[in-house]
């Protein structure tokens, strides 16, 4: 057996143990090349990031990315015009926006405020009492920035101003509709816009 195996060996035979023969073929050239390239890449990468700071580390890259996004956002908001009482009231009378808002409301708000706005985990949005203000701009602010500690998440970062405005427009249409079976009033009575 041993001799037969040696005869079929493809390279110089070195040792034999328990019937296993070890050949001593050269390392495949492509393998050695790959190893050298990987080591070279590793050294270059470490130098570029951790020694010479040629490339941005993730935290620096993140800050730059944020700055760019911030500038873009400011530009966009400026183009959209001010988000004030009048603008929001106008949107609440636009049926397409309100329909969009209803869509957003169903997927993100209905969990706590009920599908009809009657409230559950969160307060009733169809009565006349408001915990964080019932004026259009207050509603927008509450959705956009949330109320930390009161359990209202800030939806602005996820939804963006367009969807937040639509949701606010829809909520404006809910005010005072007093749906049946709604949660008892919470917060201060709302006097009107």
């Amino acid at each position, binding site marked *: *057996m*041993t001799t037969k*195996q*040696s005869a*079929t*060996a*493809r*390279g110089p035979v*070195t040792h034999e*143990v*328990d*019937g*296993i*023969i*070890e*050949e*001593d*073929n050269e390392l*495949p050239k492509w*393998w050695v090349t*790959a190893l050298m390239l*990987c080591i070279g*890449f*590793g*050294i270059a*990468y*470490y*130098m570029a*990031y*951790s*020694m010479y700071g040629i490339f941005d580390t*993730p*935290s620096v*890259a*993140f800050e730059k*990315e*944020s700055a760019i*996004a911030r500038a*873009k*956002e*400011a530009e966009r*908001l400026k183009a959209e015009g001010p*988000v004030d009482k009048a603008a929001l009231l106008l949107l609440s009378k636009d049926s397409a926006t309100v329909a969009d808002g209803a869509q957003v409301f169903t*997927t*993100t708000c209905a*969990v*706590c405020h009920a599908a009809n706005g009657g409230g559950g*985990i969160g307060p009733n949005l169809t009565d006349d009492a408001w915990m964080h203000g019932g004026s259009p701009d207050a509603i927008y602010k509450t959705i*956009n920035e*949330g109320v930390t500690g*009161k*359990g209202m*998440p800030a*939806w*602005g*970062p*996820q*939804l*963006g*101003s367009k969807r937040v405005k639509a949701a606010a427009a829809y909520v404006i249409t809910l005010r005072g509709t007093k749906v049946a079976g709604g949660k008892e009033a919470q917060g201060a009575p709302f006097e009107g816009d």
Partner: protein
Amino acid sequence: METTPNALEESLEHQPSSPSDSKMDRITYNDDVVRKFIAASMIFGIVGMLVGVIVALQLAWHPANASAAGPWFSFGRLRPLHTNAVIFAFVGNMMFAGVYHSTQRLVKARLFSDFLSNLHFWGWQAIIVAAAVSLPMGYTQGKEYAELEWPIDIAITLIWVVFAVNFFGTLAKRREKHLYVAIWFYIATIVTVAVLHIVNSLAIPIFAMKSYSVFGGAQDALVQWWYGHNAVAFFLTTPILGIMYYYVPKAAERPVYSYRLSIVHFWSLVFMYIWAGPHHLLNTALPEWAQTLGMVFSVILWPPSWGGMINGLFTIRGNWEKLRVDPVMKFFAAGLTFYGMSTFEGPLLSIRSVSALAHYTDWIVAHVHGGALGWNGLMAFGVFYWLVPRLYGVQLHSKKAADAHFWLATVGIAIYMLSMWGAGIGQGLMLRAAKPDGSLSYATFVETLLAIKPLYFVRFGGGLMYLGGIVLMTWNLIATVRAGKPVVTTVDVPALVEEKNEVPWTQLLFAKPTLIVFTVIALAILTGATNFIAGSFFLVVAAMVAVLGGLVLSKQDDDGKPTWHRLLEGRGLLFTVLTTIAILIGGVAEIVPSLVAAPTEAGIAVKVDPYRPLELEGRDIYLREGCYNCHSQMIRPFRYEEQRYGAISTLADSRYDHPFQWGSKRTGPDIAREGGKYPNLWHYNHLVDPRAVTAGSNMPAYKFLATSSVDLEKTRFKMRGLSKVGVPYTQADIDGSVENSREQGKAIAEDLKANGVAVAADSEMVALVAYLQRLGKLRVDVAPGPKAAALDPSLTH
């Protein structure tokens, strides 16, 4: 002489030297323990994979959590059982079988001690049973693949020492002077697993089955993934490579391709693997230099890993025709191919930008199953199909069934991996997708889960096929065993003659190869540890030494005398010492700096308040239920993560987390900044019935928390323990813990009552809500610096 009836086996066992040359020793191998380990591996393989199929179903179809029956079968408790069973019971027992069987033959000695062999076997099985009982009961340290509580950890250490004594004792009485490459890998395994297990399991015991890691926050993250990654390296890779080096040439009846490739890839693999741990923590709050090292070494690791695959596949290459007819060869060839695929995918995933997409998603799940099912599983099956007939002196009962198993397994893996690649990449892309205005396309996490849920069913199917395969194998091998009877293998081997004029060990230790390599490593470490001017100098010197050293060493090849490495192979102890040094360098270089000085963010004065006593109890419930298996607490520095989850996580956020809970997979959303986001009632409703709050959620229900209570009197022991590992609880905090908890619990219970829910102030529900409401709020900025963890103001316009 060999008593195996198989003619091939007999000829392979034949000793080339003539018996008249020298004194012969008659030895009988201890194969009983090998047979036992194989049986245990098959039984626990079926158990581990069955639990795997169950947890896969749970992710696709939440009623499989059987939440109404109690907490024992929920995903968070069963997933650790699945991973532990597959790694330590299935692969572990297979490894011990392979190591014991091949080592005796490779060193021509019976195992050192029958008593230790049996103790090893029964001790290990007792540990597995303890794991199978304690994990569903909720006893866990909350660290992945190291969940088992401290008494079991001590038992693991003791049994591992038994293994080591038995193994090295066998080497000590060997009749084969030179250690074959398989033995090198076994040595690396035994030494490294011991080091990893002991360091990562260091904990302060609180109760009989409760402890806290001595490491906290980023330190714990670093230690845990140094362990976690190298459990893959030294429990699932090196021993299986050693086994490959014995059984593949045996089954292929071909010589091993390249001895020098064995040397190069063994040393580069064991040295480099240990550095790669931080690739599990890319883009986290871990200091960036450690992340960079983790990534760089993972990329360099690719060729050394492939060295093993090349040596295996090129060994088979001379005998491809056997691949058609022999199921064993099919399993080996496919196993090696999966090894090559996984070890290419691993470095790819370690690239920072690829990790950004893949981390926390099912892509990683696909990757690890390529390794576990494809490499470990197929290699194990190959070994069993080859070994069991030989251990019982018969032919395999059904070759057809083995062929069917091969196809079930490979197609099962293919279905598994393709579905999880799709789910992982798909969800990763959805989570970062943005609308033209920069807002998130998928504003809620559950939308992305619903999109990939069909693939969870597909994965369940793939897993089921793989499970069917191992059941088929077990039937086949039981039938094989029944047809034969245990073979007692006795061989006559020449006694080892003491070599005269042996090269002294000092001359081997202080030889050119070691001196050159250690000089290069020392210079490389100086490069990293100094500033860029000095570092550049050290780097240039290191490169020069490496190149010149390489030239010097390559010149030594042709003088006809045994090479330095050949001499080293005759020195078991020195070989072990050098291996130990090789695996310690990376760990020390990466971990010690963070232990000496806890990493902090530069330029920020922060104060971190520890958890209040009730929150601490809530956190222990979070650990017990295994919430970390699906929820991360680490918001990475990407805009889409900040938008979705809140301000990016900093080191301070988790400074007092023993153990850290950064997580490794997001089946649900990140909850690092969950505190204050939703009202208490939201959490109550969500824990009682996740679907009531998030339609389509696959989270188990935790209704029982409302009726089970926390023993507030016990919190003080936990606080005292934590204060010993650096959490700043004062004596007054500890003394007032009951009062403090009652007060906080009462406030939450009253709030819930006002909203129509009656729940006791000392219930586990209230404690868990208290914890969740504190998440992301431990840090108090004294003087906010440039990197303060405030939400980017532009995000709220």
